[in-house]
């Protein structure tokens, strides 16, 4: 995956779920259901490289994956 696509997708998921009370669980479930292991690994790598590109909730959630 290209970095920009991954960042956009992750942030978009966060934006659409973060208003929900159970947003952490929802985002986690979503990523686990639909993302390939490689995409999840890349996500974590990108966050560790430069977390400023990411929505805060994604950063929180990614840490638990």
């Amino acid at each position, binding site marked *: 995956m*290209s970095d920009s696509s991954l960042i956009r997708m992750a942030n978009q998921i966060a*934006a659409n779920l973060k208003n929900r009370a159970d947003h952490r669980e929802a985002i986690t479930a979503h990523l686990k259901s*639909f*993302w390939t292991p490689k995409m999840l690994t890349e996500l974590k790598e990108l966050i560790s490289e430069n977390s400023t590109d990411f929505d805060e909730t994604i950063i929180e959630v990614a840490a638990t994956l």
Partner: protein
Amino acid sequence: MSLLKETDFGTPASDSTENVTVIIDGREITVPAGTSVMRAAKMLETTIPKLCATDNLNSFGSCRLCVVEIDGRKGTPASCTTLVEPGMVVRTQTQKVEKIRKNVMELYISDHPLDCLTCPANGDCELQDMAGVVGLREVRYGYEGKNHLASPTDYSNPYFNFDESKCIVCSRCVRACEEVQGTFALTIEGRGFDSKVSPGGKDFLSSECVSCGACVQACPTSTLQEKSVVDLGMPNRTVITTCAYCGVGCSFKAELRGDELVRMVPHKDGGANEGHSCVKGRFAWGYASHPDRVLLPKIRESITEPWREVTWEEAIEFAASKLKSIQSKYGQQSIGGITSSRCTNEEVYAVQKMIRAAFGNNNVDTCARVCHSPTGYGLKQTFGASAGTQDFKSVEKSDVIIIIGANPTDAHPVFASRMKKRLRKGAKLIIVDPRRIDLVRSAHVEASHHLPLLPGTNVAMINALGHVVATENLIDWDFVNSRCDLNAFKKWEAFIKQPENSPEVVETITGVPAEEIRAAARLYASAKNGAIYYGLGVTEHSQGSTMVMGIANLAMATGNIGREGVGVNPLRGQNNVQGACDMGSFPHEFSGYRHVSDDVVREQFENLWGATLQKEPGMRIPNMLDAAIVGDFKAIFIQGEDIAQSDPNTKHVKAALASMALVIVQDLFINETAQFAHVFFPGTSFLEKDGTFTNAERRINRVRPVMASKTGKQEWEVVALLSKALGYEMNYTTSAEIMDEIAQVTPSFTGVSFAHLDKVGSVQWPCNEANPNGTPVMHIEQFVRGKGQFMETHFVPTEERTTRKFPLLLTTGRVLSQYNVGAQTRRTKNSTWASEDLLQIHPSDAELRGVKEGEWVKLASRVGETTLRAQLTSAVPPGVVYTTFHFPVTGANVITTEYSDWATNCPEYKVTAVEVMPSLSGPTEKSILDKSEKALAKNV
């Protein structure tokens, strides 16, 4: 099989529950009240002569052949217009009525050409039949009297002729156009002897006629006759099969003479269409034998080389060895495939099985990704089943219908006709669409409310409708309390009541007056039966999934789920979108929508297939394309899809394709995508396939081979051979065996088999032990997931915004005569009606830019540009432009962006910021890859 002639009962069935017993020619029969004497007689297998009556039209009473005598009644009433009454004693064959019939026939024949032997309808002419039935032996009037024999023939329609000289003015065509199709294009002109059928204006082609074929089918003579019958002669055998165009899934009788297909006639017993058709299914099947068809496999080392025609063995060996070497070099995840919604369930199942078992990964996706993936997601979340809730027939019971982001008269014409029939009976209509689609106001149909929202603001709108329901005490509390998860409901209620969702606030987002929104919500919520139908105008947004859930919320809140006449109904774009999704085409799901991480399910597949399967989701199409550009994804198998034309941001798609080491395309034609392929497996048209399609109402229909495969193989056979060459054998000998396997592993399909379908015609899944006859309406007692789940649907606007540089919003759709990327319809005479993509633009936007009707314009977005002709129309509001993507020369998807639905990555085709400016010339033939595409691609 010989030529199938369906029984014609003369008048429609009555749906009364009351029964009436009558005696007809001494025999007693009990029929529903409201049944005509003619129909009751036919139920006793007593055929009363008739010409103007046919059972898909209301009785008319004009031909006067069907007169009978009824004890206690004076005169000779027509049996078509006379309804049964208790104790009625009818005589259908008395001297008196036989004399009238014979004399009436004599009048008919006194004004009819005597060319039966050379007439195209010879052998299929009701007038001819009736002349025989009544025993007409002479015409005492002679033939020199006033007549219509010199009337001209109208050849203007590309598919049928209108020979006025043969018309008996029974009005069946006029009535079919009104009652069945709902277009009202035909009329009777003139009075008395001068009465004649007229399409109004000059001829059929220039009239309002939509060429659905209903009139041709209704015509009892050769007056309206398919050109193919004129050219080829009368067919003599029938194969019942299913149309391969849109998601309506019409049943057709393919009528052949020997092995030659003569015509496609809609099948009366077809559950989806009940005997109706549109211009595509009825007439546009000639592409199957178009010279562009590729019939032999082709391979090449690189896309710059010419193709080499090779044997199947060589092509399969070539493909398999390349796939293996790529996997060994780049890893197991470096290859994948895409299934096609155009192919049968069995073909799709075979491809996903090959990918999971032979490729050894879950990198399988389907073209539903780019159309209805949000439907699957949204309805699964809320209802527990990734499918529409109703059958098409349900619309006959609807009182208020909302259509959101769909244009049924163009894209789902046969369903549109069924809907219009209901609307003409008084159901109310609400349309939510930026464009003034035809249903907003057309012959005898007028929407109560049109909410012309700004593209991209669907969720705000659905929330406002929900807000009105929740704040104006329009909630169906009984339904919510008994059928829905109350915790989820309370959260939703609290959310939806917030002022940000009020029509007054939403007016500022959507541009639709608050009062209109409120009135529409009240109308829907207060309906006895409210139904929602939607299309890609809902799903193809960056909030597509949210919108689907918003629709589900609204339906649940108003109690409009779980019975006839209500429901949430996605109108599927392609013939087998539903089926392709059902068959396990998504990277995260096996057939029947079960997640790959479910150990129990996975083990079942592993045991049956004898293969180790992966438990994590694979890549979606956009992920694959992205990965290809990065260099991680090297090979793809594409079943019957033209992603280089149909997928968004084609520049990106082409670059991705060009980056791969191996592209395998299985298709009918060398399409845009095949320009990037190394292996081309010729595919089969629907006329050659043996399998099943599942339409938008979950109806599993048989697709039967009308002709032998022109390539010598079924598509699943090719897949099985490739799989075998990769080291995994499938061992099917027939497609029926594939369905048997599907039934074995898919809980909602356990009752499905070809044998069962051949027996009952079609079934709607779930079809299993609990529902042996299928399930026309879902969620009746409870939701598939148990309790209905309300979801909070926060409106998150798309990042695609108009700017000073791109101040207009482009939205896309299709026209009636063309279909999708046009691969099929462009290769038929359907291009008579639409031969290019046009840009619809509001006159005021056009004037600002100096754009004139019919002139070339350049359409540009931040990702690309194209040129096409402008069509000035107020059907689009100012600020919005619209086009179709049927023609590769236009390549409208050059313009569309990489934005997609947050949950499913369904592309945001419906919102692109663009600018339009006059252009000096039209589109030019492009090279396969332009400079920017080459720069984007790896390894070129």
